[in-house]
């Protein structure tokens, strides 16, 4: 179930505080709407993989880097 608008707003504010970011109050509603859309996108990425499914860009040694 998607989080409530209030829960989204609280989570967003916590992220801003912990990142040390201060948004002008007049922009908050616009950014919160983008955040809600972004969180819905992020939800699509989770819960679809087995523990063996590795991410892209897994580090690989090569003969060149070993030299």
């Amino acid at each position, binding site marked *: 179930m998607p989080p409530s608008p209030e829960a989204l707003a609280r989570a967003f504010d916590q992220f801003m505080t912990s990142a040390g970011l201060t948004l002008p109050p007049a*922009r908050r509603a616009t950014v919160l709407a983008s955040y809600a859309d972004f969180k819905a996108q992020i939800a*699509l990425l989770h819960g679809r993989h087995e523990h063996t499914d590795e*991410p892209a*860009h897994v580090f690989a040694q090569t003969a060149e880097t070993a030299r």
Partner: protein
Amino acid sequence: MSDMSIAAMGAALRAGSVTSVALTRDALNRIHAKDPSLHAFVLLTEDRALADAARADTEMKSGVDRGPFHGIPHALKDIYDTAGIRTTCHSKLRLDNVPAANSVVAERFEAGGAVLLGKLATHEFALGGPSFDLPFPPARNPWNPDHVTGGSSSGSATAIASGMVRMAMGSDTGGSIRGPAAWCGLVGIKPTYGRVSRRGVFPLAWSLDHCGPLSRSVEDSALTLQLLAGHDPLDAASVDVPVPDYSADLNKGAKGLKIGVPRNFFMSAAALTHDVLAGLERTVVQLRDAGAIVEDMALPDYALFGAAGRVIMMAEAYAIHEENMKTRLLDYGEITANRFVLGATVTAADYLAALRVRREVTDAVNDALRRYDALLCLSALSTAPRFDAPVDALSSGAPMQTIPFNVTGHPAISVPVGLGSDGLPTGVQIVGRAFDETTLFRVGRAVEVLSGWEGVKLP
């Protein structure tokens, strides 16, 4: 002279029927006439351009030939470092930035004897725009200045579509070459990730950033990529694979090619318009009539590509801008800052989930391209919107369909196929196998010919 292709300009220069100075003066005259209302350029390097053109003429007269770009005017998006020439990223934060060295791309143009006309408008840091709160105004769409160009390579698209220059460099992290190309009636190619060095280009998101040209024709694009492609050991993403002849198959046509159309990408998209879909359907019929096998197929849901791309982009972009976001947030344009702050909300688990999806969808596209020579889909779902009806290019409902191939790294080209009922261009996107830009240019050229776009006069 504005209708001359890069190859035609080169032939005329070598035949002595035109000089580089004449080509450069002609371009500058068009810039002076049109740019005050279209705002493609943030900096014009007029004196240097004329000096470089004169040098090219002298060299060519004395038998020195630096190749297809010798004496040809071009311009660079203002995120490409240019030695001794201000490079701002269209941002207040970098207004005083004068790089000491060229980007690799600028260096290749310089070594090839090309003539730099100036630096072009971009959405701020290749992300935030179109905006009216930046040091320079946003570039306007020459087809209708009340409409946006798309971004972020906005000035590049404006300069070419208005006839100021035949080819200009853009960059593409989520569609910033192909989107403006589609909305301005141009050809735009995002080469394979690792094909063109990104060194000296201000990054938006390291693992999604690509350098490539916008141009008037597929042939122009093939010639430009020929100049730029190649291994750069100092670019961590650069790949050491041979550079083929990108023009070799240009005119082989579509006969015998097998092309897949992932309709599940766009058929249920809310932003899809009749005009754009009609352009794609015409292209399918034309390719079949020309002897290609064109069939519907499916890729993973577009939403999955879009979500992975946005998370990766926001996380990497925030990492690049973190310090300035904390201390100078109000020096960014409002749109830029509003987008960048979302990067602070991405967790490590989110980013890694996006990278796991990245592997999954890249495998799926590679599988599809074992069955097909190329994929045909849309660059944009609509024609260019008006400035007063803005859309968030990164939102889940955005009218672009370009970011999937930044996520997977496959080469993709946008080719114009017609005009919509609003008089604005529509385009299709063709996707190829990694490092097989030669086939991509072949399909793109076939579409260009079959669509009749070459006969359409630019505004």
